[in-house]
């Protein structure tokens, strides 16, 4: 009996390892991922050439497997569909080919194409499983990020400030319009500066509040600032003797 033909060579004997005991069938079928997988198994086990499958032999083997399996448990419809397909291919191959249909494709071609594609994917799946996987074969660095989760601080630019100020001014809520020019700002700057200097001292000598290195304009502005502070009762000036040193201190509630 010829069971297979590989590259034109007739193979008469079935390899011994083909036989699977029926009681093992259930287990074996469970390991197949479908009819294509089962077919591939049969082809490989039988050493059939996938490009020149003996349809008779393959169909016989396949049918015997699924007949056995059907007696044991319900079989997925795909297996039955494949059985029908195999029988159809086999019968088409038995028909004599009319001369005009020489060009026609081998009836097995589509099945072979599917088997090849499935086999490639099946092997790709095995390869994928062999790839190194995070958490299984290696681990990524996952140190914790420390530091309190402070809220982001808003950004500010000078323009925001000017807009806010202009908004205030245009609301015209101020009883008396304030003149705000470079000079007045400068005086106000010095006022804050003098208060800052006095914060850490009970009092300071008058001259200590002035930096002669900054020019006359700066001296005048500082002096105006001191006068403004005195006028607004934020500081008091005192002298212990006529023409003696003048001292400046932060005003205290009397």
């Amino acid at each position, binding site marked *: 009996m010829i069971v297979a033909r590989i*590259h034109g060579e007739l193979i008469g004997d079935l390899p011994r390892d083909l036989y699977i005991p029926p009681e093992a069938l259930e287990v074996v079928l469970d390991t197949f*991922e*479908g*009819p*294509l*997988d089962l077919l591939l198994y049969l082809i490989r086990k039988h050493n059939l*050439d*996938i*490009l020149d499958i003996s349809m008779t032999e393959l169909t016989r083997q396949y049918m015997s497997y699924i007949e056995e399996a059907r007696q044991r448990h319900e079989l*997925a419809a*795909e297996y039955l569909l*494949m059985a029908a397909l195999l029988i159809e291919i086999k019968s088409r191959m038995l028909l004599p080919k009319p001369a005009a249909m020489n060009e026609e494709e081998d009836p097995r071609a589509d099945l072979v194409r*599917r088997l*090849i*594609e*499935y*086999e*490639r*994917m*099946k*092997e*790709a*799946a*095995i*390869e*994928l*499983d*062999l*790839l*190194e*996987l*995070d*958490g*299984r*074969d*290696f*681990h*990524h*660095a*996952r*140190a*914790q*990020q420390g530091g309190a989760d402070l809220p982001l601080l808003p950004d500010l630019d000078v323009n925001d400030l000017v807009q806010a100020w202009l908004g205030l001014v245009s609301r015209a809520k101020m009883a008396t319009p304030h003149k705000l020019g470079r000079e007045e700002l400068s005086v106000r700057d010095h006022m804050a500066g003098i208060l800052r200097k006095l914060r850490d001292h009970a009092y300071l000598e008058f001259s200590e509040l002035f930096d002669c290195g900054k020019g006359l304009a700066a001296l005048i502005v500082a002096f105006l600032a001191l006068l403004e502070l005195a006028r607004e009762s934020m500081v008091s000036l005192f002298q212990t003797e006529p023409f003696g040193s003048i001292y400046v201190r932060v005003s205290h509630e009397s």
Partner: protein
Amino acid sequence: MNPETALIILETALLTSEEPIPLSDLSRLFEEEIESVEELLASLARQWEGKGLELVEVAGGWRFRSRPEMKKHLDRLNAKKPPRYSRATLETLAIIAYRQPVTRGDIEEIRGVSVSSQILKTLEARSWIEIVGHREVPGRPALYATTVQFLNDLDLSSLEQLPQLKEPDSILG
């Protein structure tokens, strides 16, 4: 910024990032312009030579990972490991990875059996596959493709790094 400080900042960011950091993002770490982040990365990789982690480039960018020889020690610590996937799941994943974008119908055609929704859900839950569109045929079936996460988890920098498909040599025979 002196190079040591820059290296410390770079190292800290890479060791604490949950995801690989793209090269373009790394320069954002520094207030000042950094001349060459690539050079810093090379220096950092050298610093870690002989240690248990290595700096690698994957699809999503740069990250630190444990060296293969550390596996046996880390295994002793980690009782629970990612599950091994079933053949059905792996085959489905392989078809999506190599033939993307594919519909569920395409997968079923190749595998010759129906594909359970559970398999696709499992792969989606792992963020390894995602729906990237729909095929414009009746029913508009979803088209699946693999994600950057899939490449990252396998430490691949692109799909081209997937194992080569077996050439059906018998065809040539």
